[in-house]
């Protein structure tokens, strides 16, 4: 029963309770029949364990299906995830555009470092990726890919954006010179946003087409 408690956690009460009760009745019936037939309790325990192990992949698949169902029928939860993903992608696109505009503005008339050019190109690519991610997240069929793209955009935009913006901002230039942890913070933010979108992508992952239905 520990296994059933594990794979029904977080599911709607009615679904989880239904599965637990049904399994309890099944185990009771198996045990009662074994008693009638005089089967040793240790053997019954083994048989139950084997049945649980054989059905474990199907239990996981069933859990995923139930979560997907709960997610699609629960507008608050679904909309919350969707809203967070779309707002994040929109903010990244906006951040990328602002960074590019500021970078272009300062770039005229001042010496340009090669590393800044590289960072600028990364921000261009990152902004385009974030924009594409925004469109893909808005479409249900491409939502999963959109979340992955948004995670990739974050990797390009945050660190490179800092690199591009630093020469344009006195505050950033000062902070960058006096606070070595600034870059580490940017790196942490980049990884954090990447993981956030990876988690969303996993939640939206479509069923594998070539996966055999669990027998």
């Amino acid at each position, binding site marked *: 029963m520990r296994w059933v408690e594990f794979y029904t956690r977080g599911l709607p009460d009615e679904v989880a309770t239904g599965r637990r009760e049904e399994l309890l*009745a099944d185990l009771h019936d198996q045990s009662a029949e074994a008693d009638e*037939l005089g089967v040793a309790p240790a053997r019954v325990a083994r048989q139950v364990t084997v*049945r649980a192990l054989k059905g474990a992949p199907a239990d996981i698949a069933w859990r995923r299906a139930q979560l997907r169902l709960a997610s699609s029928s629960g507008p608050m939860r679904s909309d919350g995830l969707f809203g967070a993903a779309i707002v994040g992608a929109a903010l990244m696109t906006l951040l990328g555009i602002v960074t590019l505009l500021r970078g272009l503005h300062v770039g005229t008339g001042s010496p340009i470092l090669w590393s800044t050019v590289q960072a600028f190109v990364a921000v261009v690519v990152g902004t385009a990726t974030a924009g594409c991610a925004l469109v893909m997240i808005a479409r249900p069929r491409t939502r999963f890919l959109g979340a992955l793209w948004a995670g990739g955009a974050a990797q390009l935009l945050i660190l490179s954006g800092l690199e591009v913006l630093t020469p344009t901002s006195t505050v950033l230039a000062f902070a960058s010179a006096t606070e070595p942890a600034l870059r580490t913070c940017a790196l942490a933010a980049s990884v954090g946003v990447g993981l956030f979108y990876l988690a969303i992508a996993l939640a939206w992952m479509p069923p594998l*087409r070539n*996966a055999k239905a669990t027998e």
Partner: protein
Amino acid sequence: MSSRPVGRLLELEYRILELAASAQTPDRTVYGFQLARELADGSTNSLIGHGTLYKALGRLSTMGMLEWTWEADAVSESAGRPRRRLYAITGEGEVALRSRPTAPRVVSTRPVTA
């Protein structure tokens, strides 16, 4: 989660429908462990996995080929056991069974009894 086309049944699901269709109880229902035993042809050594069985039952119910109800508390309490979920084949399930693409496989000649 299933990648199968909607409406396409697995061999296991056809077998479950066959067993439900041949139920001999007054209310023509079957329950989990009874199906597990019958699917193993009476042997308790090769019983189907819990997850496999209940996932298939859930899918057939979702597809409208089986309908289920909880056993009356009075019945389970008088028998001193947890209540069972009872499954009955629907008209849709019978149609699916009749229109099975390959020749039906005989799984058991014994009537299904509780």
